[in-house]
């Protein structure tokens, strides 16, 4: 994992019990995770009374360094030994390394989930509604007497948070074709997951 000097410096400060006592260290660490993972988090995350005595510039530097490191570790799916090695290099003592790894472990799933949700993807279906109708006549054709389906797919796009709808009509054969193909697709997924 390639990390900048800025991050390294930040961690070296974090490692120093003179700058951050145990309590402050824990608070900063939690703040870093919170900023990343909590959707409601704001700048006030560093406003804890027990952090007031620390120079705000230092506080910001370390917070940024920690957040950067956490994201990089999450992206690379770093394991405990990778984390430990880097933290040792930054002169973290055993206790702080353990603390960091524990916090990381606790937040690992949310972190990976967050990172995984970034990026473009195709919209996905969230719901389906259908309507069966019976066509009797149009202005051009009387005595039709044929059933038809109107299907609406509710779709969600993680990017734009838009919820467009895809609507289409189909007759009985077309619906059977659609359902048949969906069954094929789902069987394929089952087989693939069993491999």
């Amino acid at each position: 994992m390639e990390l900048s000097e800025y991050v390294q410096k930040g961690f070296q400060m974090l490692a120093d019990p003179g700058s951050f006592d145990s309590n402050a260290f824990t608070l900063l660490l939690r703040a870093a995770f919170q900023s990343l993972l909590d959707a409601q988090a704001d700048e006030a995350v560093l406003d804890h009374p027990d952090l007031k005595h620390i120079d705000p510039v230092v506080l910001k530097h370390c917070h940024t360094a920690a957040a950067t490191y956490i994201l990089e570790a999450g992206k690379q799916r770093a394991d405990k030994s990778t984390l430990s090695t880097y933290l040792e290099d930054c002169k973290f003592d055993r206790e702080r390394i353990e603390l960091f790894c524990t916090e990381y472990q606790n937040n690992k799933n949310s972190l990976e989930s967050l990172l995984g949700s970034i990026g473009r993807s195709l919209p996905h279906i969230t719901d389906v509604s259908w309507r069966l109708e019976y066509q009797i006549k149009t202005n051009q054709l009387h005595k039709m007497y044929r059933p038809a389906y109107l299907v609406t797919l509710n779709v969600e796009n993680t990017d734009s948070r838009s919820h467009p709808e895809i609507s289409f009509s189909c007759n009985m054969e077309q619906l059977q074709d659609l359902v048949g193909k969906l069954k094929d697709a789902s069987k394929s997924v089952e087989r693939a997951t069993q491999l």
Partner: protein
Amino acid sequence: MLLDLSEEHKEHLAFLPRVDSTVVAEFGRIAVEFLRRGSNPKIYEGAARKLNVSSDTVQHGVEGLTYLLTESSKLMISELDFQDSVFVLGFSEELNKLLLQLYLDNRKEIRTILSELAPDLPSYHSLEWRLDVQLASRSLRQ
């Protein structure tokens, strides 16, 4: 249900008994072809020259026949009703039979063509699917 033919329509159709039944059959074929592909006025001119009448007369004759067929097909009138509707035109038995046959032979296809004119929603065509497994993204590896 009987067809209600307007005076103008009856006038146009009055051309039909003046020509041979093969000509009427040919007009019938042209009428259905025009429904399938759109009309082609050049055909009227060719026919008009051969029959020694104005191309307008031919056009009216073919259009009259077309309208007769489309109205009958739209309403899906029974054989009996068709015969009764055409009876008022005072045509010969032979011509009446020919017109009935024209109706019965082409009704299904004409109804299919008419159904394409209805308001329509996008409709299902086919489904293609692909199973993908995401290995990594820019923000998450492995």
